[in-house]
């Protein structure tokens, strides 16, 4: 037995001796990166709700990341699920049919706030939905990947009849092998002033950001049936009339190319204000 105890202690010692490890390299992000002509942008779809007390903190965390990445980080916040029903004193019901569809399509998170980054199921993650502490890492990971598609938005907005004409120009930078590739277009509105539950109670003048108002495409995207070989150029047109009670000055158009089916990865996203 003494021999075995000595062996036990020896193994313990070996463990302690092998404590030295080579640490990973930390390279703080440059907020103004250079790089090639076309850069990869990242789409963050945030689950939120007016009854979610912790969601304002999530929104602030996303704003901090937008301050780092600028226009390369595109956020769409959809009000859906358990925390989304409006209060009796709410001015608006920020839920949309497309938001509900997206909740079902992407799946419910374990808790709010949560977000999906580029609709990607990251290694070791059991689900698409990520908690607030996970966003920076996966955004940084995704933004470093070279884009396969270039997305450009051209819009024309008529303030008189509130009609919006949008052309989404796609250029395939790397042949896409996936059989089901789709284009989604969303309309979001910033700074909608309405009630939100916060840590200090209900705040009537809370400014909701990046609120999904509607999808100009199908909620799960319009299939791209054209050739997706390198160099291919595709243009897709959309028209939409912005409802009178939405503030067009605060509206943005978000277009993203993504894979359809079980794998939902977003390949590229671009965003433009309705009124520049």
């Amino acid at each position, binding site marked *: 037995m003494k021999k075995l105890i000595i062996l*036990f202690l020896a193994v313990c010692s070996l463990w302690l001796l092998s404590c030295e490890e080579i640490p*990973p390299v930390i390279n703080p*992000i440059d907020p103004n990166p250079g790089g090639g002509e076309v850069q990869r942008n990242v789409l963050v779809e945030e689950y939120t709700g007016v009854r979610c007390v912790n969601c304002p903190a999530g929104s602030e965390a996303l704003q901090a990341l937008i301050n780092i990445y600028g226009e390369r980080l595109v956020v769409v916040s959809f009000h859906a699920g358990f925390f989304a029903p409006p209060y009796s004193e709410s001015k608006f019901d920020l839920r949309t049919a497309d938001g509900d569809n997206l909740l079902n399509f992407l799946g419910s998170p374990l*808790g709010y706030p949560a977000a999906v980054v580029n609709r990607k199921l990251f290694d070791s993650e059991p689900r698409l939905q990520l908690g607030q*502490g*996970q966003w920076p*890492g996966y955004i940084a990971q995704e933004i470093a990947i070279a884009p396969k598609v270039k997305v450009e938005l051209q819009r024309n907005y008529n303030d008189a009849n509130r009609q919006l004409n949008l052309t989404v120009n796609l250029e395939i930078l790397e042949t896409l092998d996936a059989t089901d590739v789709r284009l989604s277009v969303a309309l979001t509105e910033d700074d909608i002033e309405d009630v939100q539950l916060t840590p200090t109670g209900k705040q009537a003048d809370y400014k909701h950001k990046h609120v999904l108002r509607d999808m100009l495409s199908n909620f799960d995207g319009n299939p791209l049936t054209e050739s997706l070989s390198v160099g291919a150029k595709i243009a897709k047109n959309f028209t939409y009339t912005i409802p009178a009670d939405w503030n067009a000055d605060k509206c943005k158009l978000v277009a993203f190319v993504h894979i359809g089916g079980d794998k939902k990865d977003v390949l590229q996203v671009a965003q433009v204000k309705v009124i520049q």
Partner: protein
Amino acid sequence: MKPILCIIPILLLVNQLFAQNNPQISGSLETNANFFIRDSTIGAANTPQYDRQLYGGEAWLNLAYSNWGFDFILRFDLFNNSNLLNPTGSYSDEGIGRWFINKKINKLGISAGYIYDQIGSGIIFRAYEERPLLIDNALYGLRLSYDLAPDWQIKAFTGRQKQQFDTYNSIIKGLNIEGFLTLGDSTGGVALAPGFGILNRTLDDNSMNSLVATLNTYPKDDIFEPKYNAYAFSLYNTLTAGPVSWYLEAAYKTKDPINTGIIIQEPGSVLYSSISYAKSGLGITLEAKRTENFTFRTRPQAQANQGFVNFLPPMARVNTYRLPSRYNAATQELGELAFQADIRYLYNKDWTFNINVSNITNLDDELLYREIYTEIGYKYKREWSILGGVQFQNYNQEVYEFKPGVPNVQTVTPFAEFLYKFDRTKALRIEAQAMFTGEDKSVELRQDYGSWLFGLAEFSIAPHWTFTASDMYNVKAGRNSPVNENGEKLNIHYPRFDIYYTYRSNRFSLSYVKQVEGVVCAGGICRLEPAFSGVKMTVNSTF
């Protein structure tokens, strides 16, 4: 996991070859079926089950087979639109949830598959299952044990932690030695049961890459060099001397990235002690625990109750009555200083007394939880018995339920239970409870959901039938109680009706349940569950 199915025909074949052995097979079945009835008023709405799925269920079928010195375990798990993993979501999957083989060859024990085990009280390592919260932290790997002496054993294990039907990628390995020795003569002497354990968790590359990418976004002052390897050590001992038993465990964890909202890297420690005295109808247990930065997960990104490598013992009474169990103190891994005292006294065969006091603060001396629980029981022959008491609680809802800005919930909860036996088979049990909550002065309303009344009547006809009817009534609505369309607080009834039927080792239940939002705990691990409205069915069987 499908190749494991090949084991079954192999077992059958081998069984034929060694038919002279004495095989033993046993098993158990546990099934839950929930039918969801939308009730927006109480918040039972806006989940996939209430909106469109209408049904959700889970089942576990466990088979254990022993022969030729081997133990085999095989378990089939099924989840259909289940809300157990995520109370506001839906989870569907099915397959082999566990397989396990164990063989003892002289002094060497070999185990492989999904292993449940722990070191000491689990502070540095515990692989376990808590089905009510769908925690299944089995270690998928290999374990070797060796009997150094009749009372001394050493074991080593390595593997990865189970994650539903998959595994996490981080590697866990551990070493544990424990034994038993007596000082003095074997009858009246002192006995010691010491142990020592080491655990190592090595982060996988993907987890580290994600962690590094997160750190890259941090301000310079918050950046650190993350460690792949975290080591935890635990030294523990149980000393028994006559009626006194004293358990002491000290654990230390090396620097490890932990998620506190932002990710930091700090060492952690736990000091836990429990001393108990039991003699002549008197039982006293005193416990103390100090915890600092002892979150230990397979990866720092793991959320909620996912990926725990260890288990920290809870330090508050586990209450069973409906209202006294409404507020529970979940273990705080980042910082907690907790004390608990429990005194039980059996005056004679008719009278029993119990007092339990617990006090939990964080390391800055902010009160997290305080409970004073008293209970007196009296039994009259075999005809009837009565039990009553009162509980006082002070519960930091802001910390335990992540509801920033709300005050501590203070409650006074008297309770009573009366059991009357009509004859040898028929009995009636009645429970009555009332919970009075303090005032939230910021909104001039009662705290949380306010005050409650609860009543229960249970009629049983042994050995088969039990009928239960209960109601929980929000007699004085509070800050978080539901409101009507005009914003007025509602006083809502939450009724429940159950029928249980037991036939030998089979048990069936059918329940109509309307249940308020609350914290559900299993073994000190807790989570906030939304309200429930619907019908529940269960079938449980052992064979």
